[in-house]
């Protein structure tokens, strides 16, 4: 009924569902590849789209990157994996843990070993995961170092208007985990301030009832990396915006030159440094070129796509980074009346901007003492400044 396959790309604005007389093509576009599924009959489109994304995630998991040459090189593994993931168009095994048990991902080491020993990529023991009640976890996991790491990552989505006031801002957070624990551990994770979490969605391993009644995350973790939880911080809480952008972009009607200046500075950072700042902006078509000088970092302007990007790096509160210069406009053409928007990326380590704090992590069911670690980070999500 449906199969995902890769196909060459033309435009970016392809609708995800294309009807044809007898089939419907549903596609997702990731890593510059279209993954297309063909369906013949009515099916919830999200069902297919979700599955295709799961396929892409699996490929990425298997091959590290998911690009056209990689897929072509591994076409046999791709076939094997798809065969396991789908049965007559119905998803079968989509948990990467189970799949990896069935078909081992190709690594350089394994290829070498395989050629020497003659063993294969396909797991020779039968997959037991599919039969278990915790289908996301392999049985018989063993580690010498037992460790569990949790990353609390929050992203700020915001739209800031011309004058610097916030039009909309919200915080979306995820807790990504990397759990390498022997046996069948049963973990509980509790928060200092669980009330902050407004809208949560869980990995299937989390016991929903426990969360409902006690606001505690209780789960048997999958092995390896997984996303435990994603959440939304309730809208009532005012979102602290950690950076500000001062900008002055002006085109003059008479001359073919425009002035361009932006400065980025910290604001409500709770004493942490802002790192990894990048500024990108799509300039109007009328802009031919820009000659700019940054006070720090590097910048590029692509005259074809009209994309300006400035890699700022760390913000030093004593010496605010700025980018100044002129734009040369198409001669004779009237000044562009659209204003570019500025997109911002940044990172703040060891800070969850919402103030969310993990209280404790306990393990039951196993005897050993695991090593536990929790890391916080705040990032810019879709952070946009209008000018």
């Amino acid at each position, binding site marked *: 009924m449906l*199969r995902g396959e890769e196909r060459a790309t033309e435009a970016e604005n392809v609708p995800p569902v294309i009807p044809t007389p007898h089939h419907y093509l549903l596609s997702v576009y990731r890593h510059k590849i279209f993954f297309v599924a063909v369906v013949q009959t009515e*099916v919830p489109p*999200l069902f297919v789209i979700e599955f295709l994304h799961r396929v892409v995630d699996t490929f990425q998991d298997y091959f590290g990157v998911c690009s056209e040459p990689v897929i072509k090189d591994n076409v046999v593994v791709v076939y094997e994996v798809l065969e396991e993931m789908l049965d007559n168009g119905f998803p079968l095994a989509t948990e990467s843990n189970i799949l990896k048990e069935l078909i081992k991902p190709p690594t350089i080491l394994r290829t070498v070993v395989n050629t020497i020993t003659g063993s294969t990529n396909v797991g020779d023991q039968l997959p037991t995961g599919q039969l278990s009640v915790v289908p996301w976890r392999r049985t018989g996991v063993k580690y010498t170092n037992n460790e569990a790491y949790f990353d609390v990552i929050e992203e700020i989505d915001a739209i800031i208007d011309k004058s610097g006031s916030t039009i909309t801002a919200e915080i979306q957070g995820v807790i990504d985990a990397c759990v390498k624990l022997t046996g069948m551990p049963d973990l509980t994770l509790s928060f200092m301030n669980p009330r902050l979490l407004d809208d949560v969605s869980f990995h299937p391993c989390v016991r929903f009832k426990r969360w409902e009644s006690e606001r505690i995350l209780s789960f048997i973790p999958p092995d390896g990396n997984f996303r435990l939880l994603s959440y939304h911080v309730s809208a009532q809480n005012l979102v602290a915006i950690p950076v500000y952008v001062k900008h002055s972009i002006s085109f003059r009607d008479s001359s073919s030159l425009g002035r361009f200046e932006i400065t980025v500075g910290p604001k409500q950072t709770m004493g942490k440094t802002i790192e990894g700042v990048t500024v990108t902006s799509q300039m109007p078509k009328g802009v031919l070129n820009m000659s700019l000088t940054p006070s720090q970092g590097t910048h590029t302007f692509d005259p074809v796509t009209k994309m300006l990007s400035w890699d700022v790096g760390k913000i030093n509160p004593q010496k605010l980074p700025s980018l100044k210069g002129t734009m040369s406009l198409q001669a004779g053409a009237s000044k562009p009346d659209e204003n570019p928007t500025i997109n911002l990326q940044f990172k703040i380590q060891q800070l969850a901007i919402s103030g969310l704090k993990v209280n404790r992590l306990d393990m039951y069911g196993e005897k050993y003492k695991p090593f536990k670690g929790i890391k916080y980070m705040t990032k810019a*999500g879709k952070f946009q400044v209008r000018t």
Partner: protein
Amino acid sequence: MSAAPAYSDDKGGSAGPGEPEYGHDPASGGIFSSDYKRHDDLKEMLDTNKDSLKLEAMKRIVAMIARGKNASDLFPAVVKNVACKNIEVKKLVYVYLVRYAEEQQDLALLSISTFQRGLKDPNQLIRASALRVLSSIRVPIIVPIMMLAIKEAASDMSPYVRKTAAHAIPKLYSLDSDQKDQLIEVIEKLLADKTTLVAGSVVMAFEEVCPERIDLIHKNYRKLCNLLIDVEEWGQVVIISMLTRYARTQFLSPTQNESLLEENPEKAFYGSEEDEAKGPGSEEATATALPARKPYVMDPDHRLLLRNTKPLLQSRSAAVVMAVAQLYFHLAPKAEVGVIAKALVRLLRSHSEVQYVVLQNVATMSIKRRGMFEPYLKSFYIRSTDPTQIKILKLEVLTNLANETNIPTVLREFQTYIRSMDKDFVAATIQAIGRCATNIGRVRDTCLNGLVQLLSNRDELVVAESVVVIKKLLQMQPAQHGEIIKHLAKLTDNIQVPMARASILWLIGEYCEHVPRIAPDVLRKMAKSFTAEEDIVKLQVINLAAKLYLTNSKQTKLLTQYVLSLAKYDQNYDIRDRARFTRQLIVPSEQGGALSRHAKKLFLAPKPAPVLESSFKDRDHFQLGSLSHLLNAKATGYQELPDWPEEAPDPSVRNVEVPEWTKCSNREKRKEKEKPFYSDSEGESGPTESADSDPGSESESDSKSSSESGSGESNSESDNEDQEDDEEKGRSSESEQSEEEGKKKMKKRKKVSEGQGEGTSSDEGSDSSSSSSESEMTSETEEEQVEPASWRKKTPPSSKSAPAAKEISLLDLEDFTPPSVQPVSPPMVVSTSLATDLEGLTLTDSSLVPSLLSPVLGVGRQELLHRVAGEGLAVDYTFSRQPFSGDPHMVSVHIHFSNSSDTPIKGLHVGTPKLPAGISIQEFPEIESLAPGESATAIMGINFCDSTQAANFQLCTQTRQFYVSIQPPVGELMAPVFMSENEFKKEQGKLTGMNEITEKLTLPDTCRSDHVVVQKVTATANLGRVPCGTSDEYRFAGRTLTSGSLVLLTLDAQPTGAAQLTVNSEKMVIGTMLVKDVVQALTQ
């Protein structure tokens, strides 16, 4: 599957440019592509003993398939490796086989035996994978094998194999849709499965094969609701959408009381917001809000569904969230729908494809339930980085959400959007402003002013779009906007976009009395440039000229004639036509045409203002979240969402009558382990508990339930367990009594049919545990001379009227009458049995069947329609084994009706049967009336056409129709014949080879005596005994009813218990099934 060629083609195309890259990859086989002789090389590699070479070859072949190259000529070489030990080779062979089997059917058959062997493997995973590949091979010849394999797998011990069986069902159905009825049976069986693993897959099969058989769901409804949270994501989506449809047919509309409020939508949604604030999930809130009306009480099952799906809004899978959202939208009371908004808004953070789909749905919802998304208005603000299609959808939502209070902010947003670089988006924004202006009267002037300002925009597209929108807005109140029209008139000099020019001209023409001076001047200008205009503009010039001529002919007469003459010689025939037409209308001709007198009315009729409305307005008649909704067109296979019923269908059909119903809650506390096992009853006592998935306990219960719902033996085992449990606990006096009765019954039966006591001992548990069995029934049992219990046990789950509630089938195996809670009144029973007897008497005249040889009636009573499902009408049927008087090819079926309701049932008759090809029915004469408590018997004849396909028909009363089906056991499809030993041997000699089916078996001790053997065989099949010389050989003969083919059965029993069963028949299918049935009867 069938899409495979399509995609491989397009793959082949796209792989083209990347071809050189393939050369590097040793596995791709790229270097071989041009050289077909090199396939020999591959064949050689496949023929070697080295796994590594085979693997290499298979990898190349799969790479060839991936590139769309035809590798079918390698089929024989590949198929040989299907039994290869190396798992990777095997898997690749499977890939190949599934791809090419349809083309090379004969060769594909070579592989079948390997899979058949695999189906018997002790390892469940191997059984499952064998079934999976077997069912993927699209070769019509193996349909019977597949059917058999599916049936067997459906009662496999392992839930994983059962899941695979569920997956195989749609595959077989797409290969041969004639198997539908049999497949429905399997589906019915699997629906009763209690493991989460199976649930999703079987519902998927249900949706694909028989979505119309909603009656199969009744008994499983509560179980599905309770299991839902533990089913894997993909299954959840399928189940939720199926349950949405189900609920629409079974429950009353929760919004029916709000219909009055709906007249004033504004008020309604404020009301719903208040309710939302109170917190979701309170019917009380709705009820108190509407004290005047009859309070609507939600069916507890309806509530159960809503409650159990709600946590799934937290799922990480967008598909599940969307499924729940549409369920709430379609099923929940208004006050509760709000909960889905938050989850949907969360999905907007996801991939752009997901956003696209979600926004489409939000757009539809926001038209109907604006209040729901208002708090999230800001989440729909548009970012410059969004793809255009997302921007436009968000714009749609924003426009839908705009109201009096938030319009200032929305408009301010729109203002920034107009300055965007994305011109399509800007155009859409202008239209959105227009819509806001029409919807919200207060801001109309503001919007209009804003749009007029846009007219001085440098971008022509923006201006053009604004003009079009202004035109629409002006139509609403033209009188006040003479200035704007003048301004627009000036623009004709500058604007070049045809649509905009045409709009301006139309406006001037329409409202020429507001701009009496300018209009003729515009016409003058246009006449000058007429030839250079676009067609659409030319038409409007003619229009303008005509209108001016009618209002102001003094100034414009000449101009008009000039324009019309120009148009007369235009290249476009549309324009020529229009010119001619207009001329005739406005210029009075010699005859003084009647038309021209009315020309003014024709041209200057007041025109209603256009309504600017959302393109999503009418989309909600498609089920949300469906492909059809997304495309706004019916997709193939789309199931309409039914309207709410006027009156609720009987809710009791969902009751699963568990004898130990009341004990369940105690048991639950005592033994938490068994929770999912008894999930049905949990639905009553505390359905939320099942949501708590304690994995430890789950694993326990899983294994338990799997053993329970496994094959026959395990059934009785677990029954015994139940029984022990019960005794431990001490039963209530009532059940004790019935237990005793059960034992009495056993004793009596032992007397009646000797020698089967041992055989039924394992059933003792189930017998006595059916606490509802009544003494009346026992007496009935005696009168009817029932079969040995073992026989009935293997009769296929009979009809849809008992949609296989596992509890019933497990515990009541012994009982052929429906488990009834109320005692069946004695007189009825008497009359029933009397009637049967009488009928038997009248008919036995024509029958030549000596009672000695066929001492038993056919099958014991089977339920056709349960008392509850039939609203008081209970219908059973038996195979009387008497020739049907009308037609010798028909099986005669006795139908027993009894009315346990308190109103008479009138006009019982058979309604239009929907029968598979070949099957025909001789209906019974209409029963005019059946008084309460009475029962009646009728005979009908069914020609099954020598197949075990079920005959489906409707049983109609004056008020209701019930869908029922009768499926005959294979043994009932024949009638005994008499022949001598010699004749028998002669006939047997003709039916050898393919027509002979032999099976070895061991007779249990209980089954060694002549009498028992004969009885068991004749009970299973309607055959006559053939006299026989040797004592250890038994022979039976019969003919199938329709075709009259001989069926000869020989049983050669050694004193040690070893025996060999041989069936000779032309009808191989019948033969095979008969052997199976007889073996089962004898060995149990």
